[in-house]
């Protein structure tokens, strides 16, 4: 049984800007934040979604040991939209041990290790003394940083299932809320640009040389982005009943291939059906689908197949990755917050970059945003290793 959760605060920082207003303004206007890659020393013909000003962020002094691009982006993200104040208020309300932290990431602060490997001692091969693996590179570092940032003492974990990571944190947090180990959960995802993912996706020939074009007939790969997105989840109560609610989560595994989706989207279909079952809703109740839509030929074909099988050809849907880039382990949380804004603003975002829809995919794909009074929406996130997750949000 799935116990719904209230989203009592949320925020996102992407290449479109810092905070909900900047992101929503760009999404409404159909703008993209992608630009040709000029990150670090990377030499690849690809476009990226880089967040402005990350390296200018200084971590609060007692947390200096966490310093790395990923935790700078985490702190920048937490400061958006009064989110930090909402977490502190929840800590006051429930106690520091009753607020959990559940964050998704694919690479955390691995950039710090990549940089440290350029500074190895020429004699011994040792990494620099100041390099701190635990608080930067390790996948848990962003959750530990966030827990310490708010002086919380409740449960904490990172989920790292590649590009479904920060959708699956909603499921993990909802479970702990349901069994009562916590009263509030900081959920979200943070992933930041690094050489591993830029060169890695290029090695798989999955990056595009142009801005990505989700669901386009000519799509030929992803544009990697970085982002931090967070939501505060609580059990519904008389006092917090306004706003967006998480109605259901569906998770599944492809059990097929490490880096390619099942061609008919078997796992994607299973995740969407599980989310509908958790929410107790028929497919017709869904007013909009935020697609995973990475713009690789295989992903969009498989997902399109699965969405058409579950929902038919009429449900409005789009991928917002042409605007934000594919923010990998942060994508689930970014797109959950985009869905929340769509519900609150009665506007469905379009798909910058998409020119000519793939005629082989029979969906009601929105190239351009449109006003629509959506009440219930679904968001898809799929990752390497065949990890799938669908969220259902409603007002």
């Amino acid at each position: 049984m799935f116990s719904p959760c209230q989203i009592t605060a949320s925020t996102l920082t992407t290449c479109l800007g810092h905070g909900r207003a900047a992101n929503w303004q760009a999404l409404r206007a159909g703008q993209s934040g992608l630009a040709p890659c000029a990150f670090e020393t990377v030499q690849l013909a690809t476009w990226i979604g880089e967040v402005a000003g990350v390296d200018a962020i200084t971590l609060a002094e007692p947390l200096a040991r966490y310093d790395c691009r990923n935790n700078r982006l985490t702190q920048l993200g937490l400061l958006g939209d009064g989110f930090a104040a909402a977490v502190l208020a929840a800590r006051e309300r429930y106690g520091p041990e009753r607020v959990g932290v559940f964050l998704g990431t694919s690479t955390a602060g691995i950039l710090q290790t990549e940089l440290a490997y350029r500074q190895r001692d020429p004699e011994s091969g040792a990494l620099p003394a100041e390099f701190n693996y635990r608080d930067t590179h390790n996948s848990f570092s962003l959750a530990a940083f966030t827990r310490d940032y708010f002086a919380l003492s409740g449960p904490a974990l990172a989920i790292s299932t590649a590009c479904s990571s920060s959708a699956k944190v909603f499921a993990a947090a909802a479970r702990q809320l349901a069994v009562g180990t916590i009263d509030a959960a900081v959920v979200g995802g943070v992933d930041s640009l690094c050489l591993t993912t830029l060169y890695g996706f290029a090695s798989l020939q999955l990056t595009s040389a142009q801005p990505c074009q989700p669901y386009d007939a000519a799509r030929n790969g992803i544009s990697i982005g970085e982002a931090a997105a967070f939501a505060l989840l609580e059990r519904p109560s008389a006092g917090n009943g306004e706003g967006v609610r998480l109605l259901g989560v569906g998770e599944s595994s492809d059990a097929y291939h490490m880096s390619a989706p099942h061609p008919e989207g078997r796992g994607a279909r299973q995740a969407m059906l599980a989310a509908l079952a958790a929410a107790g809703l028929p497919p017709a109740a869904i007013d909009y689908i935020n697609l995973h839509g990475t713009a690789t030929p295989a992903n969009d074909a498989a997902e399109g197949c699965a969405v058409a099988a579950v929902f038919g050809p009429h449900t409005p849907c789009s991928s917002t990755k042409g605007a934000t880039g594919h923010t990998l382990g942060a994508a689930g949380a970014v797109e959950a917050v985009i869905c929340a804004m769509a519900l609150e603003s009665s506007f469905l975002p379009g798909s910058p970059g998409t020119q000519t829809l793939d005629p082989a995919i029979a969906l009601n794909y929105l190239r351009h945003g449109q006003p629509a009074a959506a009440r219930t929406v679904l968001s898809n996130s799929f990752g390497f290793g065949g990890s799938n997750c669908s969220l259902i949000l409603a007002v």
Partner: protein
Amino acid sequence: MTTPLPSLAAWIDGVALIAPGLPDWSLARAVLRGEQPYQPAPSELPAPSVLPPAERRRASRVVKLALALGLAACADAQVDAATLATVFTASGADGHNCHALCEQLAGDDRQISPTRFHNSVHNAAAGYWGIATGATAPCQVIAGFDASFGAGLLDALAQVVTGQVPVLLIAYDSEYPQPLHAKRDTPDCAGVALLLSPQRGARSQARLQLAPTGEAAQTCTVPALENLRRQIPALRALPLLQQLAAQRSGRCVLDYLPPMQLAAELTAC
């Protein structure tokens, strides 16, 4: 909330352990009961016969470890792995693969191998588990640094309670080679798997109930086992396994995220 919240409890139907000097649960049980002395030895990682030949040849140490743990716990519980929801939890991914990638990315030729890249994800072992067993159920992959075992146990139990389905928890860790080893000194591969079930069945060994506590974590009295408990995050489970091995009912406190620890109440069947 007006309705009372459910207790975080499940039946343990299957157990697996692989650790240095403890190649399987049956030998480990004898050592943990004090019937046999602990003898240090490198961890033994069986070849993953369930993987297709190409993947089997290339399987890394961490993939061998996680698959062997999961299969052994399923065998102990006499359940079909293909039907199970899973929770994988580990401090890190494949350390040797990570080292190779970082070394190459620090050099002039950054054209890394696509296989190395897809094997670098934290959920690589979980992905191979799905390919090997055909399990399409939900699969969670957690990272909690030293708190990985507790974080995984909390999520697995919550899945059993809220979903009323059996869940296979696989907690595993592996070593980094130098120079990362100097920064994270996990000495060897080791891990624990538990098959947790919502109802008592013919294979149930004990009932486990979990609750957060501020009490200090229990330690192991045998110094070599205590070293393993401290050095390898998944082996924070050792005090619980010691009680299971002895089929002794009672309470033990497991190390999690100090000051928050986890009190495990075990009722032997």
